[in-house]
């Protein structure tokens, strides 16, 4: 079975968040709600001497854009009591809003904070890979809007053979037990992906909640 997925080259991402806004526009998301989020992560050690000479070392900063990872083994789907979460033949995982009862089981189960409870509808919502566009041969709106062309999509196996990378990297949660269909190229500034940095995004920036 084919599996669609996202590829994000964090080495070429400036954290412009056009992907978030394009997604919100396409999906008519109200204030606060986000299917896609961008996490800014950075490190820098400073050695400051008595004369004020300030030398940085071990520094990096990069941004990670992530939405639903359309996992091969979606935890959200497994726990949904009403089978409102479906996985298509192309691997896209989506929520059938007509069936969702807003119990939030999927929200707790997802390692990646992808689904959230919309207080407007009291239903769980998340990225559906713009499956209406996919069905017409297109790409998700976030990919089409990417300003540096660092966010791509495609068959995840093809993406993995084309771009060597990692399934997760800081500050994205490490748990890949759901086999997320996502691939990240680490920043050249931090190829070992050690989690020794600081999440510089603010709470509002990476929260999905109706305001």
């Amino acid at each position, binding site marked *: 079975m084919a599996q669609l997925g996202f590829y994000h080259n964090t*080495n*070429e*991402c*400036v*954290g*412009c*968040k*056009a992907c*978030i806004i394009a997604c*919100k*526009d*396409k999906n008519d998301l109200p*204030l606060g709600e*986000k299917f896609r989020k*961008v996490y800014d992560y*950075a490190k*820098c050690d400073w050695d400051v001497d008595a004369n*004020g000479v*300030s*030398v*940085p070392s071990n520094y990096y*900063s*990069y*941004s990670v854009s992530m939405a639903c990872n359309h996992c091969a083994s979606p935890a959200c789907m497994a726990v949904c009591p009403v089978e409102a979460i479906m996985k298509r033949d192309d691997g896209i995982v989506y929520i059938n809003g007509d069936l969702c009862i807003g119990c939030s089981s999927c929200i707790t189960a997802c390692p990646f*904070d992808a689904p959230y409870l919309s207080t407007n509808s009291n239903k769980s919502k998340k990225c559906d890979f713009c499956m209406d566009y996919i069905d*017409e*041969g297109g*790409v998700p*709106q976030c990919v*089409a*809007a*990417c*300003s540096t*062309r660092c966010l791509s999509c495609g068959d995840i196996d093809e993406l993995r053979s084309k*771009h*060597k*990378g*990692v399934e*997760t990297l*800081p*500050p*994205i*949660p*490490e748990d890949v037990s759901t086999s997320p269909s996502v691939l990240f*190229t*680490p920043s*050249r*500034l931090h*190829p*070992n*992906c*050690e*989690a020794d*940095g*600081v999440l*510089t995004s*603010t709470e*509002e920036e990476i*929260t999905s909640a109706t*305001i």
Partner: protein
Amino acid sequence: MAELLKKIKESSINRRSFVAAAAVAGASASIALAGCSRPAENTVTETTESSPTSMKLEGGEWMSYNCHTHSCAYRCHNRAYVVDGVILRHGTGDVHPDSVEYPQLRPCIKGMMGRKIVTGVERLKYPIKRKNWSPGGGAGVNPQLRGKDEWERISWDEAIDMIASEYTRIRDTYGNKAFLALGQAEGRLGGGLLGSAILNAIGGCLTTWGQASQGGFPVVANHMRGSYSAGAADSQDRIALSHAKLIVMFGINPAWTASGGNMFNFLNAKKANGAKVIFIDPYFSTTQQVLGDDWIPCRPGTDGAFLEAVAYELITNNLQNQEFLDKYCLGFDAEHMPPDAKTNENFKDYILGEYDGTPKTPEYASAICGMHPDKIREFAQEIGTNAGPIAWKSSGAPARTNYGNRYAQLFFTVGWMLGCVGKLGSEISAGSSSPNSHLGTPGGANMVAFGGAKYAYPKNPICTETRAESKIANKMFDPNLEYGITFTETFKAIVDGEYSFPSPNGQIKRSCDIRCIVRDNQHNPTSQQTGGYWAEAAFRKETVEFVVVNEKYLTDDARHADIVLPIQSTLEMEVCCGAPATAEFALFGRRVIEPYFESKTDAEIFFLLCDKLGISEEVAPKMTVKQAEFNKVLGATILQADGTRAPLVTVTQKDLDEYGVEGEPVEGIIDFADFVAQGGYQVQRKDGDHFMNIFDKKFIDDPAANPVKTTSGKYEIYSQALKDYYDLCCFNDIDALPKYKAAPDGYEQAKTEADFKWQLITMHIIRHAHSCVANIKELDEIFTNDLLMNVSDAEKNGFKKGDWVLASTREGGKIARRVNPIPHLMPGVVILGQGNWRDIDQETGVDVGANANSVCVTRLLGDGYQDYNMNLLKIEKYSGPQLDVEVRRQPFTAGI
């Protein structure tokens, strides 16, 4: 959120073992590959296989429109899918396949928020009047209530009547100098207009003048190099830049300042030949996270000291391009002094310490700029031994400091020591805080450019200086002219009744008695000018009898007005052409929503007032916005290989008739119908095309035949004319020779301070374009714009992420802002994104909106430039009434 943070925390515990299992070695290999091949492995085609935005939409039309942000440094190709006058969706610029040569001009977050921005709850619908203000002056004014009064709706007839009668009364009672027109030229409505067209028509007004973006660069560049263009002519275009092998960037962060397609261009320019990119900046910007190969953190305002030490290293290692200096420059050494020099000092001996006993060694500079001396040596070796081509680039930011003029001198001088002028891939470009890789055209004019709108606005009879013409910056000072009030002094002058005439230290003062403040164009000076601390007091001054503002929202100055007139956005104009940036694209913008409620364009309002005040068509010939914008199409041109320009758009008589406009048919290279359908015309570039720009190539090829416009015809490292001009009419000091000098509110002062010790820089952020769209909550939720502070500084001072702090200046400005401690910012430096709307807590006097200029003090500098990046703050815990972030605050609405 708490859940995610917990997950992030947990995930960091065992990350190392996971990484070992992942294919990291492979990842590194792919990165190395990406650096030297084009297109990169991460191909653009993968993301742009089709036109997804055209799908699943029926019954309407995709239409291009001109972005609503009037002061963005970039302009993208914004499109909207419109059904029955309602925008259903924004486009992604995908009007053609995407490639490096012909990239889609993908919009940024601001552009894609168009429908929220122009139809939001904050948008003004009707003319409004302050309840406790009535015309006629005296007891009906109640100036103390400006900014806190209630609003009432009035009709356009009432508004125009009141404005016309107040203008007449104030002029007849106090004279024309009682009017102060704020604001600057609005490019779309006719360049060159500054101040107020209607006040010009009734006898004139005082206006404001000075430099904003360019800092200390213009006067210095015009004297030392003979030209200044804010990067338009001296930057390379993006294709020429791809030939550079080394790119040095002083204070440049296009990921934030020009956030549409500009970074894609930089990225491709770097990839093409694997250029090394070095940044000099106190902050490791998001631009660097993509482009940076080396980072040299430098304290705000000390780049000049750094450059002196770089010069020292080049000289003592004999790494300067002596041949270039000897042939093209004067003042570098004793053998090449300009004939008009009034001293014998030359640059080389100054750097070696012959005059002041202080060799400008890396150790000398290190104590000022904060870099390790070895890092300075390493940088000097790098630039001195790199075979090039070298692109030596500065934004205006380092020159937006107290002695930004001296930085400008040193920036050019060290650039010339490298000789990186006049050859493909080389450049010394200055002040291009605008999109560097998108400007840069032969002669500085856009590759495709619109013609003029042909409005004939009356000139100001009493006040000459306009920012657009920039007489002082262009060496055209005339003591017999009236220049008006400098930007930095604008509000303080209203309060004090006194302003400074161009003169050393501003020693010549003139009195003013401002009775009426007018801002009838699209700009927000109360947000964008230093000395903003004085704005509220200025608007509330007892003697100010009338304030009128044209606006879309209740901006800071609109909130302090007596009458606010609602204006149209560019999305509502029947035609709206062009924009100052994006040299490769001429955008034909259409009306994508109907004019919002009763809003009108600035031009329509002008003509209504002309009629009411009896201004004849001889003085102010009438023209519709549609005709004016169409005139731009008729005059549109494209640059030819021989340097001439040819018509761009073919417009037939039938087109003119169908569109209902007048003009002469013209024969161009694209039919009007296609021009409309494609949203304009974008140049398809290729390496070697005639659009590539090499600045001052003629001078370099034959300096005798093609001298530059300096006194000597050569580049003047020692510029006597510059020194003399400063002594005549500029506000601070300079030397004929480039010399770093410690300045008030600089690092040298900061290190002696107990409280006012924080060096503030106020950056252009991606969140808004100056003050444009700073009110939009959909953008607040993804960019919160907190005060950025170094992590260890925050720890030492007891500030945690999310704490509210009070930051203040000695002048009295106070702002409240949340702290976000980040690791990749130089200790001692704090960053506040500029453009937030001022919002003064009436009880405490604290600006809880945190406008950057509330804490940028009034200071007279050079040709009226402003030191937005050189102010010292005291920062303490905020203890006032509880605050929440903007996204959860009440919107600014008139309630009508």
